[in-house]
């Protein structure tokens, strides 16, 4: 009963997503550099970095959970990826709906936290705390944006939402869902850990936050996970608000568009401290979210 076509499709999609994820990270660094009038690294730089990390001759571990953390994170990201309807590949999205995917996208956070906590380094503990508080802060507006979306389209299934958007036009054309789009975009910054809310791995303050103790293949795993997560998040964003895509190229264009919004916002804003971020998230995005939700009641 194991249909090989779906399995091959899945594996192909995972490889494609990882590759494109690295490219997105490269685009991100390249765009930031270009904004600062620097040439910036080649787009495929993250692939080189990951290969270099994999090639490290020595690898250090603080215990079983320290190793299990990144592995679990990457596993969860791949799972989340396979539930999102990428372009015309249905993959497994018929078996899960929006809430499941939203939760699966947050599960890698637990993997990273597990690994970071078991390393015993106070910087990583501080990173974990900030990561969790950011998640707590952004969860309410994130939920409200999703609820507005679900209430408008009346269904939880991603494939249905994509189909409805093909018929009735993209979500952002609907005024209420435009508000939801704004809220989701702000939350998107925090999900990716980009500039205004990158308190989680604030490079200057707590040296790479949770990832301070990671090196060699563990860091490679985390980079791959970040790549897959980036691809999954942008695909999720595109599917929800920009009407999914009939083919990979169209999806790619939408993903890059979303990515550029995030990059432009990231390269302008300084960093919020964690309680400012919490207060901010519970003030404006939540209010806009409530309005969006009430409009689509």
């Amino acid at each position, binding site marked *: 009963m194991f249909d090989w076509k779906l399995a091959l499709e899945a594996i192909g999609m995972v490889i494609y997503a990882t590759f494109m994820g690295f490219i997105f990270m490269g685009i991100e660094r390249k765009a930031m550099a270009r904004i600062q009038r620097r040439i910036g690294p080649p787009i495929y730089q993250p692939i080189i970095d990951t290969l270099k990390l994999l090639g490290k001759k020595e690898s*250090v571990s603080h215990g079983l959970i320290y190793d299990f953390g990144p592995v679990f994170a*990457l596993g969860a990201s791949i799972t989340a990826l396979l539930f999102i309807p990428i372009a015309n590949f249905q993959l497994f999205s018929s*078996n*899960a709906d929006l809430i*499941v995917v939203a939760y699966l996208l947050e599960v890698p956070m637990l993997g990273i936290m597990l690994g970071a906590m078991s390393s*015993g*380094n106070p910087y990583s503990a501080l990173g974990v705390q900030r990561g969790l508080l950011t998640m707590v802060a952004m969860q309410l507006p994130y939920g409200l944006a999703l609820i507005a979306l679900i209430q408008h389209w009346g269904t939880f299934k991603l494939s249905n939402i994509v189909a409805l958007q093909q018929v009735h036009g993209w979500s952002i054309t609907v005024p209420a869902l435009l508000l939801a789009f704004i809220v989701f975009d702000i939350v998107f910054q925090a999900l990716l850990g980009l500039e205004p809310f990158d308190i989680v791995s604030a490079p200057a303050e707590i040296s790479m936050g949770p990832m301070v103790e990671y090196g060699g293949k563990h860091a490679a795993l985390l980079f791959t996970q970040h790549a897959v997560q980036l691809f999954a998040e942008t695909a999720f964003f595109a599917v929800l608000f920009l009407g999914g895509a009939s083919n990979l190229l169209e999806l790619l264009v939408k993903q890059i568009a979303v990515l550029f919004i995030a990059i432009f916002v990231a390269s302008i804003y300084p960093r919020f401290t964690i309680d400012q971020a*919490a207060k901010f998230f519970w003030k404006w995005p939540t209010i806009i979210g409530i309005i969006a939700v009430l409009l689509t009641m």
Partner: protein
Amino acid sequence: MNELMIMLFAPLVAGFIAWALDVRGIREAVGVLGTLVPLGVLAKYYSTIAGSNPEVVTQTITVGGFKLIFQLNTISWYFATIASLIGVAMAFGMVSTSRSSYEWLFALMSYTGVLGVFLSGDFVGFFLFWELMTFASFMMVLKRSRHESLKYFVLSVIGAYAMLIAIGILYAKIGALDFGTIRQALYMDAMLGSISKSLTALVFLLFLTAFGVKAGAVPLHVWAPGAYSEVDQSYTAFFSGALSKAGAYGFLLLYILMGAKLVAALGIWHNHMVFSYIIAWLGAITVVVAGFLAVLQEDIRKLFAYSSVSQVGYILLGLGIGTPLGFTGALFHVLSHAVFKGLFWLVVAALVLRTGKTRFEDFGGLAEKMPITFAMSLIAVLSLAGIPPMAGFASKWLIYEAAISAHMPLVAGAIFLGSALAFAYVVRFLYAVWFGQRPSDLEDVKEAPLPLLIGMAILAIPNIVFGVAPGLVTEYLGKFLGNPVGGNYYKLVTPTGTYNALLVAVLLVFGLAIAGLIFIYGAKTRRIPVTNTYQSGNPVTEDYNLSMRRNFYRPLAEALDFWLKYSWDRFYERLAGIAEDFADFLREGFYNGNVQSYAWYLAVVLLILALWGVL
């Protein structure tokens, strides 16, 4: 037919025997046996209840002029099985943690109380076992601390007496006490409207306080942290696992008995039933408030106590939604909360038993010392945080579905915030207790004793089984609620969404395999000690504990300082103080010892009689 009686009174009798014998070995054996009997009887009845032609098992006895009816239908079987499952786990836990037979007696008495509440078919039996359950759990807390126990007892007795008055009003209006007649009369009355609107509102309010106190809804949750943390922790598994479910069962009863009448009396607002909307909002507020309080706690038991209150808030919310899907979600969450919270409390019992400490700053780095307990707590963490392949997620997912499809967006938003808070305080527990540098005095900590581990295993297995195959539960609940949730046993299909638990688990394994491949490919890992961490180059020593366990969420407290000024505890303390001062004033004023003033009281009464005559 009298198996029901055996099932009901077996724990009580076992409790008395255990209390009377008070011999180390026999006491535990009798106790465990006492908890196993109900589980056995319930298992035997599964075929009749959930079989092809489900028929209700009833048993009536007359006590003191009242006719007590005990019935076992689908819903009471469900609740009774959960309670007995937790009871068995508690018994195994108490084998290793409880020292005195006093605790065995009252633990098993509260067990009988809960079973009685779930099985009783009329209000007198319901009230009798409700009081018995409250009293027994109160005596467990009384042994440990007077203040907490009195706070718990006063609140729950106020709840119980509110229920008694509501029962009295119903008895006065309908003349009967058993659920069948009351339900029939109230159903008819919804049309006729002989019971006035205000009276129905009063009865609803009274029942709300009664069940709200036991379930721990926000304004009445004050007793929960104190009561849950003061008691011997393995009993708390039962206390918060099963006893708070009696409150949830009460709310369900409210729907069954008075649903139609309440709708007729309190009306509809924006196509939500007003009374269920109130319950939903009560649940939502409980989830958020208790979640925030749980995150900011420093004591491990307080954290889980507030977490229990918040999780029961989910159940109330599920019930409050009112749609069959909402009920399925709520009742599934009853099972999953009972299971993972019971597991957490057994883990806490193991920790307190082995280390004797309860505050987060004294723990640390126990993952190596207590590996099995750590594995169990990891399962419980995954389940409570709602990570997909676990039972916690399935029930929470159903409640989300129900809330959003019933057009209750703000309530659904509250759950989003609540589940994030759950994630936060659960990870905080993981970090503070299991990881980081181990304080020097925890060096010789041994693994938890075997019976406690068995108890944990009993509760861990359902977590995984119902996580991967949620259909089992929803299909059983469907018998009672007109199966709103389709799909086979590993896949849930609701009109608006689907969740395939098995597939998520498979894909997670697939993803882990890929990640594992990459991991194995790299250089062989070398284990380094905790002191070999990057402290910007400074050498690190074992003596100074680097891990950050105290005030883990200090920034959140700063972000919330506006709300944290108000606390329900202080409000209730002041109320109690006022009551006691009034009592003093009354006593000093009235009984002031002077015969003359007493004679004046007589004269005053004579005056009243004289005036009375004239009126």
